[in-house]
């Protein structure tokens, strides 16, 4: 994220270009759920002390819990995980591999209407 403006442009571009619909793969979604629980839930989960959820709620985001969203796209999720936002840091590939990240994306987009 050397250049914050380029990052913003990238974000807009990606939001517009939602990927084509692909049939959800249950085992992929399951794997995504597990990786999400380990790496994302402590900030984005439900219940007290979840700073990602609190931050999104403070912004007026509804629903504030990522798992309940139906508007996130895979490329957008990947950008956030690999570039960070506010105090959410980047995650290394030894923590979350590209395959794990694909699985997280499958999990978080499982309820999207296409």
């Amino acid at each position, binding site marked *: 994220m050397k250049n914050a403006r380029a990052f913003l442009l990238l974000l807009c571009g990606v939001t517009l270009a939602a990927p084509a619909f692909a049939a959800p793969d249950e085992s992929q979604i399951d794997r995504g759920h597990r990786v999400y629980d380990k790496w994302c839930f*402590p*900030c984005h989960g439900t*219940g007290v002390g*979840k*700073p990602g959820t609190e931050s999104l709620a403070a912004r007026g985001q509804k629903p504030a819990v990522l798992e309940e969203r139906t508007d996130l796209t895979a490329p957008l999720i990947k950008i956030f995980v*690999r570039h960070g936002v*506010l105090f959410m*840091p980047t995650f*290394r590939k*030894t923590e979350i591999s590209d395959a794990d990240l694909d699985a997280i994306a499958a999990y978080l987009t499982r309820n999207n209407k296409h």
Partner: protein
Amino acid sequence: MRVPPGVSPGDFAAAIKQFEAAVGKEWVFTSDDDVELYRDSYSPFWHEEEDRVPSAAVAPDGVEQAQAIVKIANAYKIPLWTISTGRNLAYGGSSPALSGSVILDLKRMNRILEVSDKNHYALVEPGVSYFDLYRYIQEHKLKVWIDPPDPGWGSPVGNSLERGGGRGPLHDHFATVCGMEVVLPNGEVMRTGMGALPGSKTWQQYKYGFGPYVDGLFSQSNFGIVTKMGVWLLPEPEAYRDGTVMVARHDDLVPFVETLAYLYNSQIVQGTAALDSPLLTYRVSKGGGVVDLPGDISVAELERIGREQNIPYWSSELHFYGPAKVVDLQWEFTKERFSAIPGVTFKEGRSYRFPVELKDSDDVLRQALGIPNLSVFGFLGKTLGHMDFSPIVPLSGEAVFEALKVFGEVYHEMGVPPQNQFISLPWAFFPRAFVFLFGFQIMHDVEANKRNREVFRRLIEACAEHGWGEYRTHVAYMDDVANVYSYNNHAMLRLHETVKDALDPNGILSPGKSGIWPKRLRKARA
């Protein structure tokens, strides 16, 4: 591709090939996108040349692979910066002190080798996070507690080597370390303490082994790569309780801290105690400072407001762990001791019996009950993170008064407004001392970051002038902090350098860590 300083592109390419042969291509990261992930997410150098950026990263899956990497690095003089879980946010994250270093990422070495709930210890690899260890203990229904720092995604190995702190009775983390396995800079494996005895049955039970005790050499250092570590755990206590002590007047802090020191050093008060000041919080709410600034609401005025509105000057929440009967008596005894201060008041706090199922309505700090979490990030609001300035000062009221005065002078002299001071009152993270924690905000604003770095450096000097020093620091200030630990013409740093040159003649391990540079990169001291 970036190359490490002093290494030719050809040599670097050859080294990378050999790293790939050692750990598998998949675990050597060289593309810009992958290497970016090792930058400090809370960097005080955003958009500046000075930003610490590695050239590559390599992630071994075991001690033999780590040894192989060290041998290759020696052959090509490649600097390797070791991380365990790499979540050293506020102190540099996973970034190196020297740009162009190759990150040695031990995250894949994540085995939990043993957990004993009979004698209360664990033996873990560096990639095991507090979350991992907690989950393992839960799954195996073991009756032990870990002591996580506020963010649970770091590791017993990384955090303890940095000499970090937690909240429970075992809050001084380096003090819980018992036995290490270390890959030395020449690639040899060594075990410390009882581990030096082949087939030892007490590696995690007795720290000191025989002869000089060397474990400290591997903390905050660049003398070795720790590949296994023993840590002591807390037997699950029967009960926990807390309570708050409050005193009315400014000068009450002196007997207040004296009493706290007695109780804390007697291990009657066990968890980390943090000093609080409802009246200074009031002053901050009126746009004033925690530190003493000219023209701010005076002590006398604050005391008057305190009397009128029934706001105490100082307070602290104290934590007790143990048998239910005993913690009740400890709290009773604590109140008895503090009652020597006229006007002292107490507030009863929480009380738990274990095991317990916490509900959302329980507002207790999870980490104080050994449960790792990330709730602390909630304090960061809409910010991009921070870097910590963390000086150790004496555990006394007089020292707190002096510190607030000195910090106030620095902030005034440098024109830092109260809303940018980000200082909290000191904590007793470590036995017999206070530590102040300042969280300097990071911004995507080069000028603001530069300014903050100047203030940071001025604080290091001002503290040193008063006999206070930092307990650890961000990679950006390692030279500055090492430089003030200068007793007898830098005798200690010179010893570190002597050890460095003897153990690591090629200067491959974490150049610049704690201000220790290998000979070939060492600058002349002023």
